[in-house]
């Protein structure tokens, strides 16, 4: 952000923010203090982005910005100008086929109430993009950044391992002979 870029309206600066959301272009005008969480939930109807601690601690609001997991609650909207943003709504295919991560969490019982699940799925997505075959220690490190109050981390850990297997198998299927 530069001081030249915002527009002043009734003492509130607004910023034009253009970004790609789950593959589609978005254009909004936001006050400086708007967070990505506010923007995604209130203006883009992405309710899969949960609001909980609103302090970067619990991970319920995790979205991917240019492939990296960030806390939407603690990122200003002006900072995602020009970025590629992904939420849990973008994981399944157009025809409803679940992604490898979603399929794995379903198979392994990686959720109970589901409140933390969208954040867990996005953390898993980022991890598998960086390392398609993470070991237990690395998975533990990544999922420990998100709070789950009811499932127990063992089943989530198994879900991430299974997601890696499913994603690997999918890639092999798609590889040219």
């Amino acid at each position: 952000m530069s001081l030249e870029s915002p527009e002043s309206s009734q003492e509130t600066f607004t910023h034009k923010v253009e970004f790609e959301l789950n593959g589609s272009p978005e254009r909004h005008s936001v006050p400086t203090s708007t967070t990505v969480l506010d923007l995604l939930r209130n203006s883009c109807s992405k309710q899969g982005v949960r609001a909980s601690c609103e302090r970067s601690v619990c991970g319920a609001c995790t979205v991917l910005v240019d492939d990296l997991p960030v806390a939407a609650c603690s990122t200003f909207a002006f900072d995602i100008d020009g970025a590629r943003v992904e939420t849990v709504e973008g994981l399944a295919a157009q025809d409803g086929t679940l992604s490898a991560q979603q399929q794995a969490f379903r198979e392994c019982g990686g959720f109970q109430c589901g409140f933390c699940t969208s954040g867990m799925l996005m953390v898993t997505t980022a991890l598998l993009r960086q390392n398609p075959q993470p070991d237990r220690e690395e998975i533990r490190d990544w999922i420990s950044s998100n709070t789950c109050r009811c499932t127990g981390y063992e089943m989530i850990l198994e879900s991430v391992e299974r997601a890696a297997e499913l994603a690997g198998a999918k890639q092999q299927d798609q590889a040219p002979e």
Partner: protein
Amino acid sequence: MALTRQHPEAVIAAGCSDLVAQFREGLEPEVLISIQRIRELRAISNEDGLLRIGSLVSHAEGSRSPEILSSVPALAAAWGSIATVRIRYRGTLGGNLLARRYRYEMPVILSALGAQMQFQGGDIAALPVSSLWDPDPGNVGILTAVTIDTPSLLWFGYERSMRPLSTVSLTVRKNPQAGLTVTAVCGSEYRQPFVLSHTAEATAITELDPAFVGEVLAAQLPDEAGDYSGSIDYRRHLVGVLCRRLLAEATGNQRKGSQP
């Protein structure tokens, strides 16, 4: 930099991971200057024995930097051990230091390394990281980088296993004339980090006695280092143990900046 001179009251925004918390705590700045897109602030270099780390380097980048891994690998390891995955990608070195929160770890890690903060756009050009807790130095402008002298550095290690009670970072440096200086910095959740130092006549790290030096360093902790989570007696004991543990590593392995 012209903007910070024009608006000395402006709040600088980097990764904003702490700033959003400050907003929630009541901060209402008139002017916010985001430095996110200044690419130069992301550079890391190591020339003529001076390691220079840009203030916008994130925790993830710092812990993987080839320049840091080749010059002070234990700094990369210590840096990579802090926070959570989201914060490691978003939080920056500058934000960790200039948030000036006792519980943040880079001030502890970098004070022991004798690091200097370089500023532009304010009234001050440079300050040691260890001076972060001195009375407010006024308009510092933008922190551009942190620099660390590496030629005299023999060993560095960081202990955070007892966090938030006590953390300790420790360096052994060769003195210009003779002898070695051991510097330990003790951090905790509720008190500013304290710098402890001991000069020994030794010519090699292996000559240092970990138990003796650990005790000498811990005894320097002032009474105000005691806090809600531990009395001063307990803290001195704990810091003594952690210093001894680090020094045992140091004396057993003399490789510069080796893994703690």
